[in-house]
């Protein structure tokens, strides 16, 4: 636990019902800096994409745990979405638009492209059979209300 007051950590299971839950939890957390609708929709979209990835790619055959950490420092949001699933073997390819390993699920291969568009930065770390962590940052136009 960091010393900042603007910190939260959430653990949920990787079922699809928890995608919309995670999205709202992060939105509720971010609402303390009263962002614009556009800003909050950007964040919600990025969370959805990352949590969906953990759910369907990270845990293709089982239900596993997903951890979300969110932190606000001044007007910047730090987001970390982590799973303990299968991991990514070809890390250098996954950010390419249209790249997907699950075309049969009608995945668009646009998840990371969307995250990169809606957030200021997206960093992926992954280890085979240990899991994947996506770290994202976004600066908000708004300042923390006093």
């Amino acid at each position, binding site marked *: 636990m960091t010393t900042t007051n603007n910190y939260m950590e959430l653990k949920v299971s990787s079922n699809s019902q928890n995608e*919309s839950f995670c999205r*709202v939890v992060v939105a509720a957390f971010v*609402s303390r800096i009263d962002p*614009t*609708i*556009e800003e909050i*929709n950007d964040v919600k979209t990025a969370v959805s994409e990352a949590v969906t990835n953990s759910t369907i790619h990270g845990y293709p055959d089982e239900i596993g745990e997903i951890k979300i950490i969110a932190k606000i420092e001044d007007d910047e949001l730090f987001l970390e979405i982590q799973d303990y699933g299968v991991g990514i073997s070809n890390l250098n390819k996954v950010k390419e638009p249209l790249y997907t390993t699950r075309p049969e699920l009608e995945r668009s291969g646009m998840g990371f492209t969307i995250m990169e*568009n809606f957030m200021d930065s997206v960093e992926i770390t992954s280890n085979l059979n240990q899991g994947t962590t996506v770290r994202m940052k976004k600066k908000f136009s*708004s300042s923390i209300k006093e």
Partner: protein
Amino acid sequence: IGEIRRYLRDNNSIRVSRSLRDIAYKALQIRDELVEKNSREPAISEIAEKLDVSEEQVVFALDAIQDPVSLFEPIYH
């Protein structure tokens, strides 16, 4: 995506706090309508369906306009 974002930006520079209040007031209005129609409290899903947002979103919005604690503990904040 750039185009989508530009489109969104034109419409979405309002603060979330305001849009949540709008959703919440609509939710309460729908609830009243449903209570009248069915003579019972509606479930969150019935309200969410009419508003076309998720159940979680309805709950989040409603929280923005009410503070249950303040009913009992008006002093502490």
